[in-house]
C-alpha cells in the first residue's frame, strides 16, 4: 500500500489536496496539509493520484516507502 508524501519545501498551502481527499488529508491552521500516517486504503488510491496530479506545486506524491531511518 502506498503512502501519501507531502514535500514540505514545495507545498505552498493551496489546499486542493484536502478538498480532493478529505479522508486522508486535513489542513492545519495555516492551511498546510496534515496526512494521516497509515498506508492509503486501496479505494482511495485513484483519488490520491488525482490529488497528486492537481497539486499546483507538485508537492504531493504517492510512494512505497522503504523501512529505514
Amino acid at each position, binding site marked *: 500500500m502506498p503512502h501519501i508524501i*507531502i514535500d*514540505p*519545501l514545495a507545498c505552498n498551502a493551496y489546499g486542493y489536496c484536502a478538498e480532493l481527499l478529505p479522508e486522508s488529508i486535513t489542513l*492545519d*491552521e*495555516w492551511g498546510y496539509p*496534515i496526512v494521516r500516517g497509515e498506508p492509503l486504503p486501496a479505494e482511495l488510491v485513484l483519488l490520491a493520484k488525482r490529488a497528486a496530479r492537481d497539486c499546483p506545486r507538485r508537492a504531493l506524491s504517492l*510512494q512505497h516507502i*522503504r523501512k529505514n*531511518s
Partner: protein
Amino acid sequence: MSSASSTTLFPVDQHRLTRQPPDLVGHLESHGPLPVPHSVNPQWQRDFAENIAASGLAGRGGAAFPSAVKLAGNRAAHGMGIVVINGMEGEPASDKDKELLTRAPHLVLDGAQLMAAACDAQSVVVCVPEGRDSVADAVSYAIKDRKKHGYARLSESLVRPPDRFVAGEESALVQWIDSRRSLPMFRTDKSIPLRIGKQPALVHNTETLAHAALIARYGHEAFLTRGLREEPGMTLVTVTGAVNHPGVIEVDRGTPLSEIVAAAGPEESVKAMLVGGYGGAWVGPEHFATPYASIALRSIGASAGVGVIVVLRTRACGVTETARVARYMAQQSSGQCGPCVFGLPAVADDLSKLARAHTDPELMVRLLRRLDEVQGRGACRHPDGVVGLVRSALTVFADDVAAHERGMPCSHHGRPTQLRFPHPIEP
C-alpha cells in the same frame, strides 16, 4: 591491539580527544603517520570498515547514526566522492567543534582522510562558519602544514558557509557546497548518499572523525575500553549555564548527568538541565542520576543530541527560558516549510503568554495541538527539536506551568537568560 609500549615524548592517549597535540610535529610524535597504505586496496578498506563497525562508533553531531552504516552507503556509491568535515556547530550552547578544530585539528583531518580512503573519495573539505576566524585560522594552518610535509594523502580545503543554526544540517551543508544555497533538502530516503555535483558526499561531525582516527590506529579494542558496553567510547560534552567552569568536558559514555555537571562546578542547587541542545529536552532533578547514553536518556525522553548540557539554577523560570529558545529557533528556521515558518513563532507566542500569565482558556489546548501538528512536518528535524523541548518543559516545569495558568506570572520573568544566544532574545 592492546595498550602497546610507545617511545614517544608524550604518553599516547588512545581514546581521549582532549589533551592531544595541536601541531603536526607533536601529532606525528604521538600517533605516527596516517595509517593508510601507499596504495589503498580493498582489503584495507574492508578492515577499516570492520574496525569502525566493531567499535560501535555513532555520529556525534546529533543524530547518533552508526558511522559504519553511513560509510557503507558511500562505499556502495562507488567512489570519486568528497568527505565533508562538519564543523558548523550551529548550536549556540556548544563549543566542541571549535575546541577540537583548534586543539586537535590533525586528528579530525586524519579521520576524514581515513574515511575518504575507505570509500575511494577524492578530497576532504572542512566547513567552519563565517565569522569564526580563530577556528578557521587554526584549520588553515593545519592544512598548510600537512601539505608542506606531504602528510595529507588527498587534498584538504577549508570553506566558510554562513553561520546559521540550520547551516550545519547535513543536506543544507552539502547543498551550500554544491550551489551556495544553505537550505535543508527534503529526503524521503536518507540511505541514499548526498551528492555535490555528481560526487557522493560523506558528511561527518568533527568528533566522530577524531574518534575514527584513533580507532584506525589503536583498534576498536582501545575505544571499547571506555564507556558502556552497548555504547562505548569517550564523549565531549559542553556544559554551560549556572556553572563556575563552563566549557567542554570529556567523559565516558554513560557517566551520570549529575557527575558531568559536578565537574563544571554548579553555582547553586540545580532546578533542571537542558540536555542535547536547543532541540533537546529538559531533565528534572529526579533524573539527574541518568547515565549520559542513548538508551538511558531515551527512557526519560531525552537524547545526547549535539553533546550539550545547560544548567538552570533554582531561581529561574523554565517556561520563560523555553520561550526564548522557541523564539530563537523560530528565527533560525530556513523559511522553507510552512509548519516551521508559522508553527514555531506560534508556539513561541503561546509560551511567552504563558510565562507572563497572559493566559486565555484556550491557551494550553492550542499549544498542545500546535505541538502535535508541527511535529514531523518539516523537511529537516529543526521543528521537531523545538516540539520535543517544549513538551519536556511542560512536564519538567509542570508546577510553574500550572501557576502561570492560574494567572500567577513568573517572578523570575525579567531576569537575564541563563542560556547562550548569539544575540539578545525576548522571551
